[in-house]
């Protein structure tokens, strides 16, 4: 039975190693389950739902001639104005489709776009051109225009400073979500990476932790646990357990059959010492069998590896491992009966 006890100790040490992170994983998981993802994405605050407005094709050929290495040219409409967006390598240009001049993406234009598509309840407070990365804007390609609204969500809208395109929104719901995402992915720098060594290590430890846990569930449940459960509703055969102390005090108890001695004593408010809570590894709940109707001395050794052979021969047993299946008489420390 030492085998199982090793797993109990392993489980304890793994708990020390990964316990906090397991709590964080579970708590963040619960948060993800209760948070409204539509609110997180901010669809309720920014409606980029422009009605289709193009009715005629603009001249692509001049743009192509000017940017022969373009990978993509799109025609779209912004605030009633027909525009071309040209992608050349990593670079993006926005050009007026009529005059073929570069569109000036300035504060006034961005504020106009933001006001037009914002559907929250606040007012535009300020527009800031940001080029330094922070937690709020790190998802976006900077430099960006950050437009702040004075609503209850502390909404920040982000627009590309290069193309004027809407990039996304940071609200308090998103910030909460992002914080728990950081905890869940153990990714305290640039969020969204879940393939780094720290989380892989923690995940491996967790796997051993949960596997040892399942092994312990399997080994520590026995018929007795379910008997205990059933006994709450159904009367079982009872045996007499006589407790004797060193100074001769005696106490007789009626105890249900097939219940662990420790459980049965505990039910009658007789508490033996324990720090492992009945795991059979601390050895604090030892009692000495003096008499038994049946020869239980050799039976039900259970997890007795905290006792040596000599002690076993003398009749010492762990109360948390001993099940009652005959009338018995045991010696317990005097303070137990006081």
């Amino acid at each position, binding site marked *: 039975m030492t085998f199982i006890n090793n797993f109990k100790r392993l489980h304890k040490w793994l708990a020390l190693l990964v316990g906090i992170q397991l709590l964080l994983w*579970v708590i963040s998981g619960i948060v993800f389950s209760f948070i409204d*993802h539509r609110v997180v994405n901010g669809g309720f605050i920014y409606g980029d739902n422009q009605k*289709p407005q193009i009715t005629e094709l603009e001249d692509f050929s001049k743009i192509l001639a000017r940017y022969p290495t373009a990978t993509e*040219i799109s025609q779209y409409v912004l605030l009633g104005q027909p525009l071309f967006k040209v992608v050349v390598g990593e670079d993006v240009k926005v050009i007026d489709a009529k005059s073929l001049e570069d569109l000036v993406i300035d504060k006034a234009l961005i504020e106009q776009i933001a006001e037009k598509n914002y559907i929250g309840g606040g007012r535009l407070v300020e527009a800031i051109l940001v080029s330094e990365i922070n937690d709020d804007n790190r998802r976006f390609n900077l430099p960006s225009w950050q437009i702040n609204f004075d609503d209850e969500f502390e909404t920040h809208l982000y627009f590309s400073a290069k193309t004027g395109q809407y990039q996304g929104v940071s609200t308090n719901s998103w910030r909460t979500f992002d914080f728990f995402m950081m905890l869940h992915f153990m990714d305290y720098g640039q969020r969204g990476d879940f393939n780094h060594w720290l989380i892989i290590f923690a995940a491996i430890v967790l796997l051993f932790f949960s596997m040892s846990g*399942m092994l312990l569930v399997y080994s520590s449940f026995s018929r007795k646990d379910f008997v205990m459960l059933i006994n709450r509703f159904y009367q079982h055969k009872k045996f007499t357990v006589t407790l004797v102390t060193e100074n001769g005090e005696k106490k007789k108890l009626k105890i249900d059959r097939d219940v662990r001695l420790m459980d049965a004593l505990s039910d009658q408010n007789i508490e033996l010492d324990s720090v492992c*809570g009945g795991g059979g590894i*601390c050895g604090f709940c030892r009692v000495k069998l003096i008499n038994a109707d049946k020869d239980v001395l050799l039976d039900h050794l259970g997890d007795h590896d905290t006792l040596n052979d000599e002690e076993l021969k003398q009749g010492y047993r762990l109360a948390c491992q001993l099940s009652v299946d005959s009338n018995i008489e045991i010696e317990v420390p005097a303070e137990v009966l006081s």
Partner: protein
Amino acid sequence: MKRIFWLRKTHKWLALLAGIQVLIWSISGLYMTVVDIDIIHGDHLVKPQKAEIVDSTKIVAIKPSIISELAPLQSIRLKSYFDHPVYEIRSEKGLVIVDALTGTRKERLSKESIEKQADQIYAGQASIASINLLNEYPGELGGRKQSIWQVEYDDWLLSTLYFDPNSGRLVSKRTDLWRAFDFLWLLHIMEYKGVGGMTGIFFRIFSITSLLMALFGSWLLFYRLKGEHQ
């Protein structure tokens, strides 16, 4: 009942209820962290495409009848797929692909040209096992009601490339690594046959039970450490 005793029992019974799911979370979580997401996405399966708009001098305008039929439009995008320039027109009537060399709706690609494009983009060593035109997206792509070419390769990960029948655009790619990821993800968020998911009742019951189990476990650990040092 003595507290430590009751703690251990509660921890044990909660583990009986939620333990299997915690084990499933550990296994699926470990897979998702260990296998790099770029490998899951099969980025190594395709060569980077030179995406410059080809034949830029031969590009013609879209036939006005197509524009007026679809108007008003959301956007018109000119780009190249596999050495052929096309316009992608987005409107409320969906996506329409126009051949930028003729200005007319692009003919659907033949099986041969899909095969040619697959050969051109595929970066692996395996040969093509089958090419099929599906009437709708397969389950692994979400089952949209739209036709798609499925090109399957003869390798141990059952690599598959999907192409749009009109533009020839590479729509998606799958390998068994990705399929396993999807499967484990559904187990991770407890979505069974489209029911449940992250906000579902199973997930909430099991995650809260696990939280209680972990809290009782921590309490138990605290007692053990305190007791052993006395």
